[in-house]
């Protein structure tokens, strides 16, 4: 049996505590040079794509902007378009919300990016919607999950209709006959649905990929169903072997319902990593990174999100206080809410008691453990094994440092994946669809 190929993408470090800014090597999160650095590193490694996340309102804790993590990002598609000028083959994936955008405009922006990158554009479709984020937009408000995904599905279908509306040969640009566009080659779009009503004509020729790659990131049943019906790639948090296999089987099984084949939807968990020359050194590095990720105040902030109340008076190096979570609405805004905070608190308390952990040690224990820890050889083997075991089709690598956090992985792990015969030595196609083997 032939071995599955591994797909790899690079996630620009995010605005949460996974990204370490206290390290002397930490560079700017906003200077274009940082984006160029990461994109070029990814392209040097022949990775499939670079990935940018999105958050449309700054996160708040206790009614104030959260100040402990890296914050401040560019608009995804604008920075990706600039990166198209300094890269040749690397896919360029931007996260853009369907609740706070309109199909005609966004389809046009995505088509533009696909044209300007010669076929390397991808769109991570997210549906995040809360009244808090809505305060920045005309639309405002809030959509519940079913409505969000219904709107997202209609949005993607309509975008594809717009992308398809110019026949591939529509632009003749025949100077002899004076025919710029072939008569009848541009179709009109007339759409009337529950969420959108769009009537008229699109402004761009069909782009190199035809349809930019669609990625989905959301984990609910509705999210998975949406991905099975519409997405080319899933960005999922399920990076561990058993968990990943369950998720993989679940989502791939859903495809048949939409007349799709398993290879038409690539499953790529977001994963973190820590490397070392020996397994012991890697484990030490991993532990050191986690201590950087959870500073004393960050530990308290995590506690506050679960307990739903101000806990700044407690010593992060001391024991967990003996108080119950506030069942009221919570103190955190702008991130996916924690379900059943009381149960989480009970679990944390039990764990802290059992192992005798301080607040900070507990938070280090329960959050953000690196997915892959080991020597380059060991990490390459783990990645390969996950893919061959159908826990994933590849991974979206989330480095903890901007902009150099991917350098070591590309220099030391990628060559070993190549030696295992599961990762490309060079790009064989021009477009992101080619890299992802989406046909």
């Amino acid at each position: 049996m032939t071995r599955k190929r591994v797909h790899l993408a690079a996630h620009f470090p995010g605005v949460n505590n996974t990204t370490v800014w206290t390290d002397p090597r930490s560079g700017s999160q906003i200077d274009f040079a940082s984006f160029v650095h990461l994109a070029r590193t990814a392209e040097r490694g022949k990775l499939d794509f670079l990935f940018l996340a999105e958050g449309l309102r700054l996160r708040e804790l206790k009614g104030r902007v959260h100040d402990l993590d890296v914050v401040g990002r560019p608009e995804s598609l604008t920075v990706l378009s600039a990166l198209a000028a300094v890269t040749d083959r690397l896919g360029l994936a931007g996260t853009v919300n369907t609740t706070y955008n309109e199909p005609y405009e966004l389809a046009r922006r995505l088509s533009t990016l696909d044209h300007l990158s010669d076929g390397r554009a991808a769109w991570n479709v997210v549906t995040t919607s809360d009244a808090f984020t809505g305060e920045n937009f005309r639309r405002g408000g809030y959509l519940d999950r079913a409505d969000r995904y219904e709107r997202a599905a209609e949005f993607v279908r309509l975008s594809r209709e717009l992308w398809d509306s110019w026949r591939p040969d529509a632009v003749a640009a025949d100077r002899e006959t004076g025919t710029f566009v072939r008569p009848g080659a541009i179709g009109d779009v007339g759409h009337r649905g529950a969420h959108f009503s769009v009537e008229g004509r699109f402004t761009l020729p069909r782009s190199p990929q035809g349809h930019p790659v669609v990625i989905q990131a959301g984990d609910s049943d509705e999210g998975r169903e949406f991905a099975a019906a519409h997405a080319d790639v899933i960005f999922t948090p399920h990076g561990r072997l058993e968990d990943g296999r369950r998720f993989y089987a679940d989502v791939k099984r859903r495809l048949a319902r939409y007349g799709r084949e398993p290879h038409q939807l690539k499953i790529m968990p977001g994963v973190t990593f820590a490397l070392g020359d020996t397994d012991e050194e890697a484990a030490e590095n991993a532990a050191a990174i986690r201590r950087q990720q959870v500073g004393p105040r960050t530990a308290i902030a995590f506690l506050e999100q679960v307990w739903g109340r101000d806990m700044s008076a407690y010593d992060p190096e001391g024991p967990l206080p003996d108080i119950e979570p506030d069942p009221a609405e919570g103190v955190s805004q702008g991130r996916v809410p924690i379900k059943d905070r009381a149960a989480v608190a009970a679990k944390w308390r039990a764990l802290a008691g059992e192992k005798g952990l301080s607040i900070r040690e507990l938070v280090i224990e329960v959050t953000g453990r690196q997915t892959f820890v080991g020597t380059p050889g060991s990490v390459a083997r783990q990645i390969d094994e996950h893919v061959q075991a159908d826990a994933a089709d590849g991974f979206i690598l989330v480095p903890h440092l901007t902009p150099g956090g991917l350098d070591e992985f590309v220099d030391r792990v990628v060559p070993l994946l190549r030696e295992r015969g599961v990762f490309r030595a060079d790009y064989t196609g021009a477009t992101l669809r080619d890299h992802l083997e989406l046909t």
Partner: protein
Amino acid sequence: MTLHLAVALDGAGWHPAAWRETSADVFSARHWAALVTEAERGLLDFVTIEDALGPQSTLPDGLDERTDQVRGRFDAVLLAARLAPLTSRIGLVPTATTTHTEPFHVAVGIATLDHVSGGRAGWRAQISARASEARHFGRRRFPPLDPGARDLAADPHVRDLFAEAADAVEVARRLWDSWEDDAEIRDVATGRFIDRDKLHYADFAGRFFSVKGPSITPRPPQGQPVVTALAHARLPYEFAAGSADVVYVTPHSDEQARAVVEEVRALSGEIKIFADLVVFLGEDAARRKARLDELDGAELASDAAIFTGTVRELADVLLEWRRAGVQGFRLRPGVLPYDLERITRGLTAELRGHGVFRRAYEATTLRGLLGLPRPASRYAEVS
């Protein structure tokens, strides 16, 4: 003092038949890269990029079904971003509509353009009054545009669109200021990445939308990217005077230039006044234009004055209008890259001969080139 010179880029040029006289492929990045690097070689202040939320048409509203003219355009903000890394000094001023777009997204997009270009971003803010474009969004129903209507200001629909545009620019300006310059502190001792007292809510609530803020993007390098607007009449002059740093006006004679300058100056002492001209350059300019008119089956019509002649003759017009108080020009090349190259290789030398054009870029930001200081954030406490 130096005269400011910009070019307006659109398709294969401003003549609708221009594409037939050039090998330009308007849907390739290469075409645009060649144009903007040429403009930068000519030391121009900036390029603007046209855009709209619907296909081009010879009709004021709706499709004309013509197949002999360029149809289709890239999103201008993304195109400008694609060009930013290929240039280092020239300003990049894409058009973005205020009517159907989200002010928050536009503000963050222009701020991002400023970050990726190292402080060279501008924005040409434009309304969209067309019913055909409103139908692409399906959220508002617009009356059909009346091509006969002369008095824009009398139309309450158009008045509202300009009021909305002013609100959109106000929101963008607040969002650009919403992070003070020194908000990012990276204070390891206290574990704080930012000083949140230096992040501010925009707290904008108006008739058309409200926006809370702060921006998700740190303050752009210029603090305030340059806002520009095209204006042909009193209502848009008022919008420009209240919202923009640069206004493009369209006089057709020396007298009109004087009159427009006087009218705009009375509204704003600070705004930079640029005049727009469609230009066909060279000894054979008139013949070239006539040939294109014939190919197109109509004489070129434009909101701006149409100039045909040599660069020396054009320089004379610019100098005359300069005396009328015009501070800069946005030239719309009839054919690309031909007429652009006459500007960058001929007109600039001619103007330099008169001592009114730069010999080297004197600043690294667009505000710098325009002589606009970098403003402090409106939210910064003066200490």
